[in-house]
Each structure stands twice: as structure tokens, then as C-alpha cells.
């Protein structure tokens, strides 16, 4: 089965998932992001690469943060950006998902940035565009269900590479609700692709997916074991629904076992970095001392996020 992210020439034409992307492709995206970081420090933060192009932000699931970073990234590439919040159910107005896509494609769209509550939606869209003769429109997955959030994975990889250089020497721990986390899945794929020495997941059984080891990770249920000697600690957000879904008793108990405190962080390497995709629940997965402390690179992640998304969009739009 051909990789749906590559065009007939083998170039990246969509970014749907980090699975199956060769390390060279990931490396190229990270390398391309480097100059975009410094452009953010100029007065004129724009470059003319996507001038005349129209980027549609199609958010079928709300997210002001992610949508804003994509909007900033596209505008810094001089693209025209249209934001569409289609709400939870595209069929609520009687129009199917693909009908919406067809309508927007007819408005000379060049790129769709898609976030959807169901896994596989961006794949469906990419495949439909290809089948309807609109394969010049690029699709960027901004988060689909619990499947993937490739730009987040890439910015996490960029952050790790920025502070730690060589993945092959690193132990990276991902803590929290891996079961529901597209961020975790994408990061795991990226880390294993780049040859990370050890990728660990830490969480209670209720929050770890079946056969998670098959993704190439080592499973821990206790932070005290899982954090030992780690170079990177990635904390995942815990959503309130998890308590209601009887996966956990309470936020308090979760923090006790799986929250990151300065004390637990001492088990990691002295120069370990702490990451979080945001938004943070202080006192639930991470305490403020760590979030605001010297190990935290949570704010740089945001800056890198814009640069990485600029890199993704400029590579795709040029292919």
C-alpha cells in the first residue's frame, strides 16, 4: 500500500502522521525549521513563500491554541488564512464532511489544516482530494482523534534536538494518558524513527493502550522506576473526562502517583528537560515549581511550534 502522504514523485504532499515517514524526511523538516526560529526574532516576521496561497484552518474540534499557532505560521509565510470552526458534528447542518471539503476545494484552496475528533479524518480527506482530481491541495493533520498530532510530534522532536542533540543517546519518558493521546502516539513514532535509545511510557493500566509495546516502548506503571536516568520527561495533559469515564478515581490521586514534582524529577538526570504539549493542568499532572522551574522548556516549545509549522507548510506547498 503506497504511503498516502507521498505524491507520485515520492515527495511529501500531505502531513498526516509521523508513522512510516523516513528519518530523512523528518530530519529535513527539523532542519528547515531552524531558520524560521530566527525569523521570529526579526521585526518583519514574514517571508513571501506562500504569498497568494490560501490556507483553510478546518477545525471540526475546537482548539484556539493550535488554530492560532497554525494561523500565525501561515501568515508569517504570507499566506491568506481562513478559519472555519465547523463544530463537533459536520452533519449537524446536514452537510457531510466530504461535501464541506468539496465546497472549499472549489474556492481555490491550496492547503487544509484539519483537526477532527475522529481518527482517520485527515486520511479520508486526503484520499478524497486525490480521487476527485484535487491532489494539488495539501492536507496537514492538526490532530485526529487519538491517532496523531504530527506537527506537535515534530515540534517536540525539534525541542529535544535543540537541547539534547543526539537522539541515539537519550532516554525519553512520556507520562500520563497515553491511551487517549495523539500527542504521545506521534512523539513515539518520531522518537523510534530517529533511533532514540529508549522510549518509555509511564501510566496506570487504565490509561495505556493494548499492545502499546508494539509501538516500540517500555512500559512502567510507577514514576519512581520510569523516571530513573531520563534525559527528557514529557508530561501529558489529563482531561476531566477521564475521571468521569471511571478510568481514574480523582485528579488528586492521579497527581499523587503520576504528577511531576521536583522530588520525582530528581530521579531523572540532573540536566533533564521537562516538556508539556499544553495547556497544563497545574497540580494535576505537573506542579508549578517544575512547570516554572529551570528544567522546563515548555515555553520554548511554543516558539518552536510556530517555526516547525512554517517548515511543514513551506515544504508541502512547494511540492
Amino acid at each position: 500500500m503506497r504511503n498516502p502522504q507521498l505524491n507520485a514523485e515520492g515527495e511529501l504532499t500531505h502531513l498526516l502522521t509521523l508513522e512510516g515517514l523516513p528519518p530523512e524526511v523528518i530530519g529535513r523538516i527539523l532542519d528547515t525549521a531552524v531558520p524560521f526560529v530566527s525569523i521570529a526574532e526579526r521585526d518583519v516576521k514574514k517571508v513571501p513563500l506562500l504569498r497568494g496561497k490560501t490556507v483553510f484552518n478546518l477545525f471540526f474540534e475546537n482548539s484556539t491554541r493550535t488554530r492560532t499557532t497554525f494561523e500565525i505560521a501561515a501568515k508569517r509565510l504570507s499566506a491568506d488564512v481562513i478559519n472555519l470552526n465547523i463544530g463537533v458534528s459536520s452533519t449537524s447542518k446536514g452537510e457531510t464532511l466530504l461535501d464541506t471539503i468539496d465546497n472549499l476545494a472549489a474556492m481555490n484552496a491550496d492547503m487544509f489544516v484539519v483537526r477532527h475528533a475522529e481518527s482517520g479524518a485527515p486520511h479520508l480527506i486526503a484520499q478524497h482530494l486525490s480521487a476527485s482530481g484535487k491532489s494539488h491541495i495539501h492536507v496537514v493533520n492538526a490532530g485526529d482523534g487519538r491517532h496523531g498530532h504530527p506537527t506537535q510530534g515534530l515540534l517536540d522532536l525539534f525541542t529535544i534536538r535543540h537541547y539534547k542533540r543526539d537522539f541515539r543517546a537519550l532516554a525519553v519518558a512520556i507520562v500520563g494518558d497515553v491511551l487517549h493521546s495523539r500527542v504521545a502516539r506521534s512523539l513515539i513514532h518520531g522518537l523510534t524513527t530517529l533511533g532514540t535509545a529508549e522510549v518509555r511510557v509511564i501510566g496506570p493500566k487504565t490509561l495505556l493502550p493494548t499492545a502499546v509495546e508494539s509501538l516500540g516502548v517500555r512500559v512502567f506503571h510507577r514514576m519512581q522506576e520510569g523516571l530513573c536516568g531520563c534525559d527528557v520527561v514529557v508530561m501529558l495533559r489529563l482531561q476531566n473526562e477521564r475521571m468521569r469515564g471511571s478510568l481514574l478515581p480523582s485528579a488528586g490521586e492521579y497527581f499523587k502517583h503520576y504528577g511531576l514534582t521536583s522530588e520525582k524529577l530528581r530521579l531523572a538526570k540532573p540536566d533533564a528537560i521537562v516538556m508539556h504539549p499544553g495547556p497544563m493542568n497545574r497540580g494535576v499532572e505537573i506542579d508549578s515549581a517544575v512547570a516554572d522551574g529551570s528544567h522546563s522548556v515548555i515555553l520554548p516549545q511554543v516558539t518552536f511550534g510556530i517555526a516547525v509549522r512554517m517548515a511543514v507548510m513551506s515544504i508541502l506547498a512547494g511540492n
Partner: protein
Amino acid sequence: MKIEIRSGRVVDPRQGVDREMSLYIDAGKVAALEEAPRGWRPDRVLDAKAMVVCPGLIDASARLREPGLEHKATLESEMAAALAGGVTGLACPPDTDPPLDEPGLVEMLKHRARSLNGAHVHPIGALTVGLKGETLTEMGELTEAGCVAFSQADAALGDTQVLLRALQYAATFGYPVWLRPQDAALSRGGVAHDGEVATRLGLPPIPSFAETIALDEIFELVRATGVRVHLARLSTHQGVARVRQAKKEGLPISCDVAIHHVHLCDIDIGWYDAHCHVVPPLRGTRDRAALRAGLADGTIDLICSDHAPVDDDAKQLPFAESEAGATGLELLLPLTLKWAQEERMPLSDALARITVAPARVLGLEAGHLALGTDADVCVFDPQAHWRVERGELKSQGKNTPFLGLELVGRVRWTLVAGHIVHER
């Protein structure tokens, strides 16, 4: 009408027949085999040289979508599909709209089907009113109207006490009950087999034990009530093992597998192909192997298509939002032949799974070609290659995971009660 089916390879699993001979049909019945009746002057001769002549197929589960779901399919289109697939008798589940919980609805369905002069339709009635799992239906009236069994289709089995009462009631009168072994709570929200593939694709999972827990519960209730139960759509290797054990114990159970589970597993979902969204879900390779072994050793009695036409709009959605179901009436035969060929199974044994076995489970006097029986016959070319494409399918539902696949085996003629109802 006198019809001669000449020089075909007649395969009748029940009679143990498998040789070249001619079949003679008169007044809708099988009049003679091998030797023509005296003074035989046929109105029509079908040249069946190099073809296989077998009993018309009996599909134990095919949704016709009438009443109520005509935007998905109609009796006309699905009947045409059945006949094109060599299916002369089919059982349809009660999950129509409204469900088949009233004799009037069943009578109307049978009447409609009869007027189309197509395959025989054997409705399976709803076990509870509205399939809600609360109150029992009038099983006596429904049986009189033509229901051959009772089931909850894909709806939840209801609380255990209601289920117990329903089974006790059915057992009183000897009505068979068809049950889908799927625990509602454990499969809630799930769309794919709980394993590596679902984890990687981020699809809500249905664990194998949703099936085994349901099977254990059903077996206990069978022991308690003595009801005859047919287990609809096995999917796990643990399930096959349990059924094997239960049969050894002597429980009055039978079971089936859908043809797509015989061939596909969760890996085939690929990049979210919604045509692979079926219930129960496509499971792992080990499960598929066990299902095939179960068919071979008779643990699994029969294969059905689990035909469920779904309109394109309902499939062209993200996987978890798409409607489950695969169309299959026209593919049951070639896919069964494919399985037989892969397992080096004799043709007669393979055909038994889709003729005499479903007839037995449904309690029908059909699925064989003995003298004097209704001439429901399927004549197919076992060498004909064809490609599964939307244009080739007569069903209104084009939703099959086998799209694009090249299959071998195509029906040439289908006869129901001695009438040629399909000709290619």
C-alpha cells in the same frame, strides 16, 4: 416448464453426490437426475458443460433493508443481488425500521418478496419489542407469520434477566434463538479489534473478551433453559475454542461466521478503509486462522454473507463515524470457493457450508437436490474470473472490503422453484 441442465458437475453435499450428470426439472421440482424421464421434451436446455450445478445457496444473514431503510437498499435491488450470487433462500435479521416485531410486518415482507419471484425470504423475528431488550414479542404469532427464529440482531441483549425469560419462553415452544455474542458494555463505543492495529490507528477498541464473556453467559443460559441457540458471527479464536468445548458438552448450539472474517483481519483496515468497518470487527491473524480451522473441523456450522448494504455517504466518513457493514450476497459463492481452494477443501464440503448447513440450522427443507424437492438450483462457472467493481454489483450497497479484488467463480444461472430467475 421443463428445464434440462445438461452435463454439469452436479455437487449435492447432502446426498453425497459429485459427478457429471444432467438434471431434469419439471413443474418446479427436481424430476430426475442422470437419466431423462420418459418422453422428455425440454422447453429449455441449459448447457452446463464445465459448470458446477449445486443446490441454490442459502444465506443465513442478509439484510434487505425493507421495511424502512429504502435509501440504503430495496427488495428489488437486493433480490437481484441474491439471485446474481446464486442465493435462492436467505434469512434476514429483524433490524429493519420498524423492527420485525409484529406479524403484520413479517407478512408484508414475505408478500413483497414472493411477488418479486426471487429468492425465498425467511425472516428472523425480533426477540423483544422494538429490539429494546425489555418486553417479549409474540413469538407464536410471528412464527405463524413466517419467522424461522428470533434474535436481537446487533442490538444489545438486554439485561440478563430479560434475556433469561426470553430464552425460557422460546425454549417452551422450541423456537430457535439467534444471538450475537457481544457484551454491550465492553463493546460500547468500540469500532475495531483491541490490538496493535487499533492502538496504532487510534481507534476505540472492542476487546476479544467482549465476545467470550457473552459466550459464557449465553452457554449458562442455554444450560439453564435448554433453548436452541445459534451464535451469529463468531470472530475470536477464544470464541471458537469455547464453542468447540460447548458442543462437546452437548449443548444445543450452532454457530456461523461471516465470509469477510474468513478472509480479512484488522491489518486490512490499512489507512482507515471504512469498508472494513464491520460488526463484529475484523480481528487478528490468529483469530482468522482459528475461524478457518473451526470451519474445517465443523465447530463452525456455516458461512453467511452478513450482507448489509450501506449507502456511500454513510461510509465516506472517518472510520469510527462510518456505518458498519459490508455488502456480500454476490460474493458469498466466489469467496467461499476462494477459501476452499486455499485450504484444499473438497468442493462438496465447502458448498455444504452455504447450502445444506444453513438449511439445517434454519430448519428448512432445502439446500439439496433430491428427487421431488423444489428446484432451487445454482449453476456456476468455477473458472470464470471477474473483478469486484461497483458496476458489477447489483446490490444498492457497493460497500465491500473486497472492491478491486479479482475473484474466481461466477453464477451463470439461478433457478428458483424451477424458474430461471437469473441468467448471465
